[in-house]
C-alpha cells in the first residue's frame, strides 16, 4: 500500500482553514447574516420575487 502523505497533509490544512474561516466568520457576524436571511421567506427561491 502506498502512503500518499501530501494528500493527507492537504486535507488537514484545508480542514484547519475551514475551521478558522468559520470561527472568523461567526465573530464577524456571518452566522447572524445567514440566520437573518433564512428566517425570512426567500421570494426569489419560491418564484415570486
Amino acid at each position, binding site marked *: *500500500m502506498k*502512503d500518499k502523505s501530501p494528500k493527507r497533509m492537504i486535507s488537514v490544512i*484545508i480542514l484547519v482553514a475551514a475551521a478558522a474561516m468559520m470561527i472568523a466568520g461567526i465573530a464577524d457576524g*456571518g452566522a447572524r*447574516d445567514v440566520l437573518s436571511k433564512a428566517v425570512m421567506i426567500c421570494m*426569489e427561491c*419560491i418564484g415570486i420575487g
Partner: protein
Amino acid sequence: MKRKYTQLISAVLYNCHITGFVNGKIYKGGSKGICVPGLNCYSCPGAVGACPLGSLQSSLIGSAYRIPLYILGTLLLFGILFGRLICGFLCPFGLIQELLYMIPVPKIRKNGVTKALSYIKYVILIVFVIAIPLVRLVPGFCKYICPAGTLEAGIPLVLADEHLKSQIGWLFSWKVFVLAACLLLFPVCYRAFCRFLCPLGAIYSLFNPVSFFGIAVDRSRCTGCNACIAVCKMDTRRVGDHECIHCGECIRSCPEGAIRYRSLKDTTYFKITKE
C-alpha cells in the same frame, strides 16, 4: 438499503418542522443560522437549517465590503470532510431523484454526451451562484433554476398562502416548468440534476480527491477490470473521481474486493490506473 435509510433520515431531520407544512409558515428558530450539508431550500416550511447554496448567494450579494468567511468556511468544512458523499447520503433532492428513477421506464445510460453534459454544473456554479449575485445582486441559481426550492418551498407556500398566490407571475411559471422538466427526466436519467445542474455538487466535487471520508481502492488488489466503472450510474471515469457520489455500488461489483469506504484511520489513498 442502508444508504436509503440515511438519505431518508437526513431528509426528515432537515425538514422536521412539521407544523410549517400545516400552517404554511417557515421556521424562525436559531438553528437556521446553521447550514445543512445537502440541497434543501431554507424557505421550505419544514426546514430547520439553512441552505448552503442559498446562503452562499445571499452572502455574495452583501459581500461588497467583506468576504463571507462563515459560509465559505462551512462549505470548505463539509467538502473536506465528506466531498460528494453528501450527495450520495445526505441530500434530500438526491433521494427524490433516486426514488423517481425506480419507476420502470426505459433508461438513458451514461455515455459520451452525458459525460460532456456533466460539466454544465460548473458553468452554473460560476454564472448563477457566483457571478449573478455579485453583479446583479440577486440569488441567480435560487431565482432562475433551483427546482428543489420550487418543490419544497414555492409550491407548498403558494398553496397555503392566498397573499403569495396572488403574486404569482412569469417567474413562478418558469420555475414550475423547470421543476416539471426535471421530474419528467428523473425516471429516465439517473440523478440528472446532480450530474448536470447541481452547483452544490460541483463545489463538493472539488474535494473528492482529498476528502477524509469516501470510497477508496486497494491498488494491490485491483486488476483494472473496470467492473466498478461499468456498474456506476454516475459519469465517473474512475472510482472516487469528481463525479463519484460514494454510493457504494462499485463495492458490490468488484470481483477482487478491492474497494471500500475509507475512514479517518485510513492514511492511504489509491486510485485505479489503466495498465
